[in-house]
């Protein structure tokens, strides 16, 4: 096409650039594949970690295996790569796990598409083929998913298996049984809600990862006021969000103007009196523990100590909300009506030591929907990564509690889907079938990469799996067994994945690939001039 050579200069702003047709497509393929290759090596139980060094002054270092975390921290310029970063972020928000596989799958789909484009197949034809293939895969995925919701014991076993599978690719793999138990217990406690805020994770360096534990109750990283009881049984807790320094007058424009020292003293006394009244009102609720979101000054603290009430100040907002959840109390800000305020209750409040730090431990709480996981580990990096891994596991589990369908992992689902897509391709006349075959190849890349990362002979294993699935489509359980380095029975090995994760990954990867394929023109605006750059 004859484009006037001065097009970008004469029509667009200076500094803007345009890429058209083949060039544009090439640029987006290259960018997307580069991103996929970046995270590819972290896939699977033998995937490797990445070190990320931040650009800010601290030069902080993060060691991670989590696709979303890696991609979030990498500054990408290429627009197509940004699309992939975006889908991994969405996967993280939506299901919490599978952030690497979604990017890798999208990357593979594009790699296959590039081949097809080079064979002069129109992108729209490829998209049409991909759409049908994705639909077929989805149907297969729905077919093969199993549901054990009615059987509580089996369901728990499923959850444990999922947790183990998720954790096995992370730093916690050594202790995966321990952590799988932890995570499943924590999630089952939520009773079906997906509100992960109720699970608090406290990280304390020191000890080994094995020393991490799940606490039934709730741990607040705060200290008890001086001279107040250190241990309370049958606690009645008032959870509050109120100013316990001097109360400000909220009426606009008010100020104090006095003409003598005595008056100042009077007003100070009045303020003190006001505080005392407030404290008395609080104590009148019949409580023996008072937790406030804001600061508690020395004076009220002393008043509480005199009344034998434990006062905890400056619990942050999350802490307060969680505490309200755990103990069943409501968050109060006014104290005039003690009869109507719901107080929180718990059996014992005591101070406990974790490592070197003192914390407040609430146990035997009324509602018991929240809990705390205390992570111990050798260094901050280990703890951070452990937290991310645990977070992934918790997310997946909480989603599985909602949608209890599970499927086998280890590339089993991909092989199943690839088989139906291949069949569909064989039945379909026209160029679309090429795209379908490409889709199946891309799906098979996932077990291939898992093998490659584990240093196994991927070609051999994947073809064996393929044969196994073709021989007995309905009941094949063959998947990659990285431990023995061969094809293994996924049911026996207990390698399970959540249906929702796979489903979301399949759909968003196809959507992203389609989006990038549809582009035939990239127009970049001139970068905004910034000060001091």
């Amino acid at each position, binding site marked *: 096409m004859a484009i006037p050579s001065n097009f970008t200069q004469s029509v667009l702003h200076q500094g*803007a650039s345009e890429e058209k047709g083949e060039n544009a497509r090439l640029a987006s393929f290259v960018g997307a594949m580069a991103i996929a290759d970046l995270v590819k090596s972290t896939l699977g139980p033998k995937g490797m970690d990445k070190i990320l060094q931040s650009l800010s002054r601290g030069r902080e270092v993060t060691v991670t295996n989590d696709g979303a975390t890696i991609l979030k921290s990498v500054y990408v310029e290429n627009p197509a790569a940004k699309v992939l970063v975006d889908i991994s972020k969405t996967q993280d928000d939506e299901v919490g796990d599978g952030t690497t596989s979604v990017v890798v799958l999208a990357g593979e789909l594009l790699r296959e598409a590039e081949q097809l484009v080079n064979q002069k197949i129109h992108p729209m034809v490829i998209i049409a083929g991909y759409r049908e293939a994705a639909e077929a895969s989805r149907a297969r995925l729905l077919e093969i998913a199993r549901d054990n919701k009615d059987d509580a014991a089996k369901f728990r076993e499923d959850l444990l298996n999922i947790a183990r599978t998720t954790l096995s690719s992370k730093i916690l793999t050594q202790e995966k049984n321990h952590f799988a138990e932890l995570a499943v217990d924590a999630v089952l406690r939520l009773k079906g809600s997906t509100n992960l805020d109720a699970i608090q994770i406290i990280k304390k360096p020191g000890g080994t990862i094995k020393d991490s534990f799940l606490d039934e109750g709730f741990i607040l990283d705060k200290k008890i006021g001086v001279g107040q009881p250190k241990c309370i049984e049958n606690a009645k807790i008032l959870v509050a969000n109120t100013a316990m320094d001097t109360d400000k007058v909220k009426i606009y424009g008010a100020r104090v103007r006095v003409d003598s020292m005595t008056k100042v003293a009077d*007003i100070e006394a009045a303020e003190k009196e006001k505080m005392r009244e407030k404290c008395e009102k609080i104590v009148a609720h019949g409580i023996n523990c008072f937790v406030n979101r804001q600061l508690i000054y020395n004076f009220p603290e002393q008043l509480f100590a005199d009344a034998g009430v434990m006062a905890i100040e400056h619990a942050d907002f999350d802490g307060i909300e969680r505490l309200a959840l755990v103990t069943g109390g409501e968050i109060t800000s006014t104290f005039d009506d003690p009869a109507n305020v719901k107080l929180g209750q718990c059996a014992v409040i005591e101070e406990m030591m974790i490592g070197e730090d003192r914390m407040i431990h609430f146990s035997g709480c009324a509602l018991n929907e929240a809990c705390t996981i205390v992570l111990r580990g050798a260094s901050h990096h280990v703890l951070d990564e452990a937290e991310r891994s645990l977070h992934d596991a918790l997310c997946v589990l909480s989603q599985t509690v909602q949608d209890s369908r599970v499927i086998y992992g280890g590339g089993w689902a991909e092989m199943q889907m690839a088989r139906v897509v291949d069949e569909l391709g064989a039945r379909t006349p026209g160029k679309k079938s090429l795209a379908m075959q490409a889709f199946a190849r891309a799906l098979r890349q996932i077990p291939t990469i898992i093998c490659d990362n584990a240093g196994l002979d991927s070609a051999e294993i994947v073809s064996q799996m393929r044969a196994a699935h073709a021989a007995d489509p309905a009941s094949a359980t063959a998947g990659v067994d990285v431990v023995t380095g061969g094809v293994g029975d996924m049911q026996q090995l207990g390698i399970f994945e959540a249906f929702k994760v796979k489903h979301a990954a399949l759909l968003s990867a196809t959507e992203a690939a389609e989006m990038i394929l549809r582009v035939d023109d*990239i127009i*970049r605006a001139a970068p905004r001039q910034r000060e001091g750059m």
Partner: protein
Amino acid sequence: MSLAFDEFGRPFIIIREQERKSRVKGIEAVKSNIQAAKAVSRVLRTSLGPKGMDKLLQGPDGDIVITNDGATILEQMEVENQIGKLLVELSKSQDHEIGDGTTGVTVMAGALLEQAEGLLDRGIHPLRIAEGYEMACKVALQRLDDIASEFEFGAERHEELIKTCMTTLSSKIVGRHKRQLAEMCVKAVLSVADLERRDVNLDLIKLDGKVGGRLEDTALVNGIVLDKDMSHPQMPKQLNDVKIAILTCPFEPPKPKTKHKVDISDVEQFEALRQQEQQYFRDMVQQCKDSGATLVICQWGFDDEANHLLMHNNLPAVRWVGGVELELLALATGARIVPRFQELNASKLGYAKSVKEISFGTTRDRMLVIEGTPNSRAVTIFVRGGNKMMIEETKRSLHDALCVARNLVRDRRIVYGGGAAEMACSLAVEAAADKVPGVEQYAMRAFADALDVVPLSLAENSGLPPIESLTEVKTRQMQEGNPYLGVDCNDVGTCDMREQNVFETLIGKKQQLMLATQVCKMILKIDDVIKPSEYD
């Protein structure tokens, strides 16, 4: 440059700082303008039709937009050239007036100018070309009226409406679910439409989106979705038979506008002021309670104390609700927006059958869904999708489809798509051209050729041999006298657009032709471009 000499032969300057300005004159100016316009329209040409490609636009801050919508592409492209800007305006005005066909109008204008270039080379005066275009346009519009067909629809019979929306959606990335989305759009438009007056207020349809889920999860909510949550975490998440009070005053002690000071000089005053302050809060909550409200929606924030008092009095509340949403809520629930607590009473409350808080995925995003409002004329289309770009593009596509449905409510006439209408016009213009004496004849033929560009690009984008398919369909139109034959983009096997159900609105098509011709005339009339040269 422009120099003039006085009677003594001394030069004097007419344009200030003329050496720093660049100037193009005469036929040169017209040609360079045409070049620029062509360049802009060429960018859009590949986006036309169901197999059209998308454009990826990177903003100055690195943000990305992927779209197929002509108006959006041109807007984001940051065109600097003056003539380019005219085309951007052109597609914008098509967008504002019709809402769809923004790509088509730009392609059409580009084609007209390209044809004009050839005529200029043959020495025809630009104004004669413009006149010829004008005449041709009239003929084409007449032809469109002739071939347009009208269809009836009512609240139940809206199959044709859905099909027209599907034609619009099929060119977008959401093409996969066009049936579902088109049904949604038609339902939304029909529920807000005033069929008596034949008018639709699109403000009543809110498009809202949240990243996550699947495109299939996109839903039409018969009510309003607010991106807010209850002000206090322990307020109930689900309310039934709600009476809603809408406030635009904050739950805070009042702040008089006049500058004032309250001086506290002794203890009694201090006490009194404190009492007063608490009384304010109690009064406010009591006034809400007395009016019988069971949900308070407030434009401003609450003080912690007020928040707790509300919670304590079992009065759920939502804070920081934006002005637009507030108005929409008021419309839907039939509530009056109350600016002062004193004016709150039972007659000013709105009603909704249910209000519930829903949460998404693993993040703590929550939204309020307000359903079952008495005035069901406010609806929300809630878009879900894999990523942010997808949602944005879906919203744009849905907006186009909504506009199309609205246009059909206004004017029921349709023409057939797939280039059928353009080819029919082109044939009519060509026939008319022979009867016109004078140079305009050439311009009219050029107009006819330009009309062919639309089916030509459609065929090209669909991977069909462009010239062959065009000529084939055109001869068939001639021979069979059937103006409903178009380019078979989707490889269905028939060229009859009635069978393929590819419709477009008549006003949309007419507007395209008129706007394109107008802009063309405007560009052709320019013979002098003066612009300041760039600073170094």
